[in-house]
């Protein structure tokens, strides 16, 4: 399987990639999808408005379960975001050329997932308007944030991650913006993409610097994404609760994150590939690799689940054991088994090459992981909380309509962003595809 169907040259690539951006035409599926996404975004906004007016109490959170959907959603989204970074940064470093066709889609997905993740911690606060107190900014009180708190580590991690993702994305996009600028025929497009391209000419000097800069950023993004998810893991293992206080949480969270990332990329790549007729560039080979990586992560995650489930019984901590048993059988056991089923068991189907070729099945499984990872997050958040040390303080947790609105709304929010990306930005990296051409084909 090749990374590109034959019969391509510089001209065809330039044309095909910029075509979708320059002449979107009347794409009903786009409008349909976009409007649905916008509708859910509206729901998101509504939920947030009501939250700010009435207070955190509109959610299902209580004492003992003081964390709920907001945290689960955050961990979930930030995990999904990782997918793009891994593909575009890690595989860039490993010089796996197949990445070139999908990294733009993946990175863009990262942006909007990270954005959705970014708002959650603020919504989660009892007094959201004071979130800026987590910044170490000079103030008349002479106070500082409390640097020992995993939450503060996390705050810096998200900040860094979101900013870096945007910069990395834009840097990679620059030459393609120039391409669109140069092919644009209407003044408004020329102006828009002209400004966006910042005067990129493709001079050799620019290319050399660009390569260096992109390489450096990639080299920084890869460890960054790992650190971000390790720290997210520490948000939990930094506490002393049974089921949270575990040394394996950091790698555990990284595995989960990457799994959900790959799943979501697949979930997006397969339809986009079809709708934009990108089969020439995103070949069965790409999908095959993505699926295999997803399977790999799924196995890694399975390992983490296993450790997490067995250690309590290996160790001698009655509280750990109680929580473990609780996860299997308790009120929220469904979320545990859903996570195991959707993230570990079902994906194994795709070991069969024949099934791997059934794209609808791949989509289905990826969607399963997409959902399954959320189940895992909510399971981790609640199951440790509502029955911990003090029997007298044991309680329950159920999401309210506002919890669910926030969750679904955030999906709409991220989706709406992704639709805009599809319409206004080249969905694949043209110049990197050109690099993939065999020397003989490198002409106009």
């Amino acid at each position, binding site marked *: 399987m090749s990374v590109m169907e034959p019969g391509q040259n510089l001209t065809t690539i330039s044309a095909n990639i910029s075509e979708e951006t320059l002449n979107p035409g009347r794409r009903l599926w786009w409008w349909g999808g976009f409007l649905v996404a916008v509708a859910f975004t509206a729901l998101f906004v509504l939920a947030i408005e009501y939250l700010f007016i009435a207070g955190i109490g509109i959610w299902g959170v209580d004492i003992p379960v003081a964390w709920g959907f907001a945290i689960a959603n955050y961990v979930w989204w930030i995990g999904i975001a990782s997918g793009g970074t891994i593909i575009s940064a890690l595989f860039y470093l490993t010089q796996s050329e197949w990445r070139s066709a999908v990294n733009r889609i993946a990175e863009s997905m990262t942006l909007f997932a990270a954005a959705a993740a970014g708002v959650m911690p603020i919504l989660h606060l009892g007094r959201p308007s004071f979130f800026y107190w987590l910044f170490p*900014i000079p*103030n*008349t*009180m*002479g*106070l500082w944030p409390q640097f020992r708190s995993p939450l503060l580590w996390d705050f810096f991690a998200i900040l860094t991650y979101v900013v870096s993702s945007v910069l990395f994305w834009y840097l990679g996009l620059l030459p393609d913006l120039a391409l669109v600028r140069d092919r644009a025929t209407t003044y408004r497009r*020329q102006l828009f993409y002209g400004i966006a391209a910042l005067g990129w000419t493709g001079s050799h000097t620019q290319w050399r610097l660009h390569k260096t800069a992109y390489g450096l950023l990639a080299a920084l993004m890869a460890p960054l994404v790992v650190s971000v998810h390790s720290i997210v893991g520490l948000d939990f293992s930094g506490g002393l609760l049974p089921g949270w206080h575990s040394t394996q949480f950091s790698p555990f969270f990284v595995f989960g994150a990457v799994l959900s990332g790959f799943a979501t990329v697949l979930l997006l790549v397969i339809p986009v590939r079809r709708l934009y007729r990108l089969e020439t560039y995103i070949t069965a080979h790409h999908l095959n690799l993505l699926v295999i990586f997803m399977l790999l992560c799924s196995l890694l995650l399975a390992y983490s689940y296993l450790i997490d489930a067995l250690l309590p019984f290996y160790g001698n901590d009655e509280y750990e054991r109680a929580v473990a048993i609780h996860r299997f059988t308790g009120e929220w056991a469904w979320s545990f088994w859903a996570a195991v089923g959707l993230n570990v068991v079902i994906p194994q189907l795709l070991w069969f090459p024949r099934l791997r070729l059934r794209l609808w099945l791949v989509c289905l499984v990826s969607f399963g992981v997409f959902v399954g990872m959320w189940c895992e997050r909510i399971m981790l958040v609640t199951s440790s909380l509502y029955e911990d040390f003090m029997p007298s303080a044991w309680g329950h947790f159920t999401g309210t309509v506002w919890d669910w609105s926030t969750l679904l709304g955030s999906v709409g929010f991220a989706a709406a962003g992704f639709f805009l990306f599809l319409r206004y930005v080249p969905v694949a990296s043209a110049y990197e595809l050109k690099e993939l051409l065999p020397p003989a084909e490198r002409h106009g």
Partner: protein
Amino acid sequence: MTPIFGPAANLVSKLVLLALGGSLVVLLLVGWIGPSTEWASRVGYPVEQPVPFSHKHHVGGLGLDCRFCHTTVETSATAGMPPTHTCMTCHSQLWTNAQMLAPVRQSLADDKPIQWTRVNRLPDYVYFNHSIHVAKGIGCETCHGNVAQMPLMEKAHTLRMGWCVDCHRDPRPNLRPKSAEFAMGWHPTAETPSGDELFKQEHIHTAQELTDCSVCHR
């Protein structure tokens, strides 16, 4: 195809960058310095009162002791505001028809208290205690400024947490001998004991204890 940008575009782009960077810096500065400005903290802005009571006249001119009106300053959290009765002890004899004092006489007449506007205000979650400060050698002037110079009462310091904590970290420079606590425009002389001596003899707590959150917040 002719390019859409002329040479001016480069200049513009530079200017835009500059503006962005500049506004960021300005924003930071405003956020940083703004709150501590006298305007923001209302320092030095005289406050209108129902009766234009002049500390300059009563303290500076007549030399009344602070405690003549603020009777509970040594025993209570609040310094205490004088009841109308206190004003009338003198003003039943002096300036009995002064227009300026009409509200005072009115208050006594129909037994309705005078509503003064607070000048030195702390948020509700801050529990300041006058008595302990006075007991440990902090003069009125240290926080309220030289009221003997104020025709109308005004805020002398920001009273922001940072300002309070500075002194709580090291009260020594602000300590006075008991005799000077209620004096205005006081300056240490050669024979006034040093801050260190006063600090010791008043058994003032360590900076760590004085900067405990629970000292002011309950």
